[in-house]
């Protein structure tokens, strides 16, 4: 079979078209990928700054220590947080759990309205073996699952070690809420974005305490700079046996608990 020259040119045209369509597709995909990676890197650099050498990636390196023995479950912290940060009702940046370990071995865990109105003495004292309160908040993990999964990098760790959400960049996919093993994140129906504890970033930047630590009547919440050896927090962590929540998950949780018992979830 002899080839018609016209046929050959046509075939070539067709091949060229086919190849160029493929090339363009690959090119566009590559280009978009490249540009966006660059943008992302720039964005992250801008947000994080350059990390310093040392025990902690940054200085100051903010965190909080919780002394479970001191918490009286008055709920002032929850209330102050919700007023300070305009937290929508039914959602909690911080909350208090009450544990009652009964003599029969069962454990009752309660947190009515996150403990915002305190607790009632509604457990039969004779049946209780041990009972205590545990204040909870975002652990500001250093390898936080939530920042890892955010598809647009809207949630990130600042150079001071505080994990916050950029409400103007969050697309509201809620993946971060799913990824938090502590239930610290929630959906903010006012903003239509994910929301969480910021360690009162707006206050600590001014040298103030987070609202919850400020109002705590017994000093059960100790806020401070871990990287400063002289700070009360660093001293507290140095001198006491402390524990983080769910350390097996390797989240790099920063919030330290003193007196954490095995029943705590």
């Amino acid at each position, binding site marked *: 079979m002899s080839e018609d020259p016209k046929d050959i040119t046509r075939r070539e045209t067709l091949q060229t078209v086919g190849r160029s369509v493929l090339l363009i597709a690959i090119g566009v995909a590559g280009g978009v990928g490249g540009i966006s990676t660059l943008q992302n890197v720039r964005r992250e650099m801008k947000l994080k700054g350059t990390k310093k050498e040392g025990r902690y990636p940054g200085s100051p390196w903010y965190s909080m220590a919780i002394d479970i023995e001191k918490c009286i479950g*008055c709920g002032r912290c929850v209330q102050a947080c919700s007023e300070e940060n305009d937290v929508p009702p039914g959602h909690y940046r911080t909350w208090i759990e009450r*544990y*009652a370990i009964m003599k029969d071995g069962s454990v009752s865990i309660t947190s009515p309205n996150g403990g915002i109105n305190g607790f009632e*003495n509604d457990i039969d*004292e004779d049946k209780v073996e041990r*009972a205590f309160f545990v204040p909870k908040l975002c652990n500001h993990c250093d390898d936080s699952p939530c920042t890892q999964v955010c598809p647009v990098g809207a949630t990130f760790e600042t150079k001071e070690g505080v994990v916050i959400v950029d409400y103007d960049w969050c697309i509201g996919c809620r993946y971060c809420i799913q990824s938090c093993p502590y239930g610290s994140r929630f959906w903010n129906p006012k903003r239509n974005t994910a929301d969480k504890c910021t360690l009162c970033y707006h206050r600590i930047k001014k040298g103030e305490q987070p609202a919850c630590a400020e*109002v705590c*009547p*017994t000093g059960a919440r100790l806020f401070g700079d871990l990287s400063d050896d002289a700070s009360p927090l660093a001293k507290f962590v140095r001198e006491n046996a402390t524990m983080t929540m769910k350390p097996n998950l390797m989240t790099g949780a920063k919030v330290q608990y003193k007196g954490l018992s095995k029943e705590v979830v």
Partner: protein
Amino acid sequence: MKACMECHPDKAEATVHVKKGVHCESCHGAAKAHTEDWEKAKPFVPSTRADCTRCHAMIVSRPAWYPQIDPKTHNPDSKCVHCHSIHELPAVKK
């Protein structure tokens, strides 16, 4: 706390709560507006028993070192401030 000291040094001195580090706003509620314009915004002044029992009622899960009273038996007929002075010492009025 510091913010209140400027104008209320008398209240801040020598009281059980303030000495133990209980913040003014823990009892008086958020008072930022008041610090900015004290004439217009007045903070909440606690007066009922419930305002105190929130922190002092006996609850099993409260730590043992912490001073607690059973509101049903601890002088149930009068307000706490009748016998306890908040901003003066001693904490229990004579």
